[in-house]
């Protein structure tokens, strides 16, 4: 405590200067943290800018009766049709290598796009149709000036001949750039131009839902027990130390646990968001318990005592008076835990969620991946165009995170008060 007889009235200006310094230190700390956040977000947004739009090429595809049999869509080789359409557009391309370069202007997905457009609209059959098809990732990068054409030909992804064709197509108005909704509606793909985030997003949502519905009630229950009801004995301190210790267990070890218990012993389906959520729940449990206990500790004991004095049972006193007062702090713990669960890759590795999964999962039992896994896999892919997909996936993850945070802010605002 301050020795007032010595200090009162003395050195007041010095103490006020110290006060100012203290406040500035606080502002400075916040500014530094915010600056880091801005730098990180800035670099992510800069990289992600390319994902907004994608390039398409107009190709005149021969769907006439002599080229294909409309009755038998399943057995039509759309790849062949597409190739001959490209050759027809540039008839002077003769050499095999050059032909291959020509075909590579359109995405490998394009032949499937023709098939889909035909199935949706059979009226297209019968004559030559001009269809807009997705262009390859390299063409897209070139159009956006991401490929340095001053380099020698063998050092870049797009050859001089291809550049000439692109210029020709552009002049003829056969190249356009459209808003890239595919990124939000497609599943994963090995072709960057059509790769999308939906399957990972849904997988993450499923896992988080499982994780939250397990870890929040269990975590808060454990915290209430330890803080309010547990007798002070060795077992309680054992549990307490144990929970703190779990917080330091590397996340991949929880994956090992999930592998041997949930998959091995209970036989739950591999790669499923159910198991992912359960593993993440175990991982976030310590965070939630520790935060919830801190929140409970900070509720003045007088709340409980007054309730008890008025005849409430201990359970009533805790649930009706202590818990509501501690809820904002508990929510903070929950949100920090969920943020951690949302960004975690390592435990999912052991239970099969670090995987290439194209189909969007329909339930928590179907194979799924998660956003951080998708980010990790894309960041590890050789194709240059995946760099921006990675950044865009990070933005999707952050948007989800911010949405979660916002809902907690609103709740916390409603509940928070100072005693």
């Amino acid at each position: 405590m301050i020795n007032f007889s010595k200090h009162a009235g003395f050195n007041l200006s010095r103490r006020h200067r110290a006060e100012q310094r203290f406040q500035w230190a606080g502002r400075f700390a916040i500014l530094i943290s915010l600056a880091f956040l801005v730098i990180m977000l800035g670099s992510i947004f800069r990289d992600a800018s390319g994902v907004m739009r994608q390039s398409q090429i107009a190709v005149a595809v021969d769907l006439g009766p002599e080229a294909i049999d409309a009755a038998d869509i399943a057995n039509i080789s759309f790849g062949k049709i597409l190739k001959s359409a490209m050759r027809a557009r540039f008839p002077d391309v003769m050499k095999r290598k050059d032909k291959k370069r020509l075909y590579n202007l359109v995405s490998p997905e394009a032949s499937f796009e023709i098939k889909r457009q035909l199935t949706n609209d059979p009226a297209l059959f019968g004559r030559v149709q001009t269809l807009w098809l997705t262009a390859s990732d390299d063409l897209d990068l070139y159009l956006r000036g991401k490929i340095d054409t001053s380099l020698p030909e063998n050092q870049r992804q797009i050859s001089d001949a291809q550049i000439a064709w692109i210029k020709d197509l552009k002049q003829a108005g056969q190249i356009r750039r459209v808003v890239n909704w595919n990124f939000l509606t497609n599943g994963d793909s090995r072709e960057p131009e059509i790769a999308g985030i939906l399957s990972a997003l849904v997988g993450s949502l499923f896992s988080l839902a499982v994780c939250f519905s397990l870890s929040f009630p269990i975590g808060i229950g454990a915290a209430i027990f330890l803080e309010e009801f547990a007798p002070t004995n060795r077992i309680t301190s054992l549990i307490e130390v144990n929970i703190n210790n779990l917080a330091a267990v590397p996340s991949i070890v929880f994956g090992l646990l999930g592998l041997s218990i949930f998959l091995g012993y209970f036989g739950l389906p591999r790669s499923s968001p159910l198991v992912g959520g359960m593993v993440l729940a175990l991982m976030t449990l310590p965070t939630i318990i520790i935060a919830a206990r801190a929140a409970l500790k900070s509720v003045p004991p007088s709340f409980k005592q007054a309730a008890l004095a008025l005849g409430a049972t201990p359970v009533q006193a805790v649930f009706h008076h202590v818990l509501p007062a501690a809820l904002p702090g508990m929510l903070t713990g929950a949100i920090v835990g969920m943020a951690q669960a949302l960004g975690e890759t390592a435990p999912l590795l052991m239970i099969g969620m670090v995987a290439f999964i194209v189909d969007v999962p329909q339930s928590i039992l179907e194979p799924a991946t998660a956003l951080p896994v998708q980010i990790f896999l894309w960041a590890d892919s050789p194709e240059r165009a995946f760099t921006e997909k990675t950044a865009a996936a990070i933005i999707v993850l952050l948007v989800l995170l911010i949405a979660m945070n916002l809902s907690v802010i609103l709740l916390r605002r409603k509940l928070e008060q100072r005693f």
Partner: protein
Amino acid sequence: MKHIAPIRFGRVGVFVNGKITPMADQMLILTQTIRPKWLDRLVIALLAAAACVAILVTAGIVLSLVFETLQFFNKVPVMDFLFGLDWSPQTAIRADQVGAGGSFGAIPLINGTFLISAIAMAVATPLGLTSAVYLSEYATKRTRDWIKPTLEILAGIPTVVYGFFAALTVAPFIRMTGGQFGLEIASESALAAGIVMGIMILPLISSLSGDVINAVPQSLRDASYGLGATHSETIRRVVLPAALPGIAGSLLLAASRAIGETMIVLMAAGMAAKLTANPLEAVTTITVQIVALLTGDQEFDSAKTLSAFALGLLLFALTLCLNVIALGIVRKYREHYD
């Protein structure tokens, strides 16, 4: 100071906010002797069960590690593992050479783990605590409501992003700065990884400590002001000591997260296990090695892969010791206020 607490959730509760009167004390004893109803007992049992989940998880972890660990100790002597000064799993690359030489010494990994975590805590603790104090004590409610969740975004950025940031922005910057002072700094350094990790765990400290500081009873502050203390003196000498257990909890949690983090270290500090206290050199951590060993291409029954399990168990034991010590310290210095 006496507050009349508001009506909460439809139930009337008039609380006297201050010291417990002797009479209230007696009533407390009285109500506690009344046997709770069966429902109450059920609730308490359920709560106890929830607390026991934590024990089950620990048991599960130990069980899922111990089998492979024993296999590992069949191949490599326990003493070599615990006290060896050389971690170099490359000599055991083939089945016929397993265990040749003391290349599974965990000491450099423990050293690296603590070095990087210490750097991270050295960055995160001052920044996090001062942010927390400022936000809960000085900032307006409006500012707090927006800055706090904004900072929490830092905790949610995927660690891959931090890894790239550490490896491609921070590490070259450190290298360049060091070069101007004539220091030869490796492109992979504990410092780069530690600093970036510090930023990542910052919101754990600032958010959780902020809540705890916020919850210190206003009466304590008012009493301190009443005695003539300035705001900052009140915070340093009254509020922070009162919030100590909660703050310690948040620091412990942040440290745990730092010890358990993989990606940043993997990308920015490399994987060379060096026994050094110099933050400018490349080091590696136990967690990084566990992940690398479990996802590697080597035979799955080789000592190399099995060592991952032993490392997991070792880390478990180490953090357990740290937690016991930390708990003891907190118990000793915690102060009870109302």
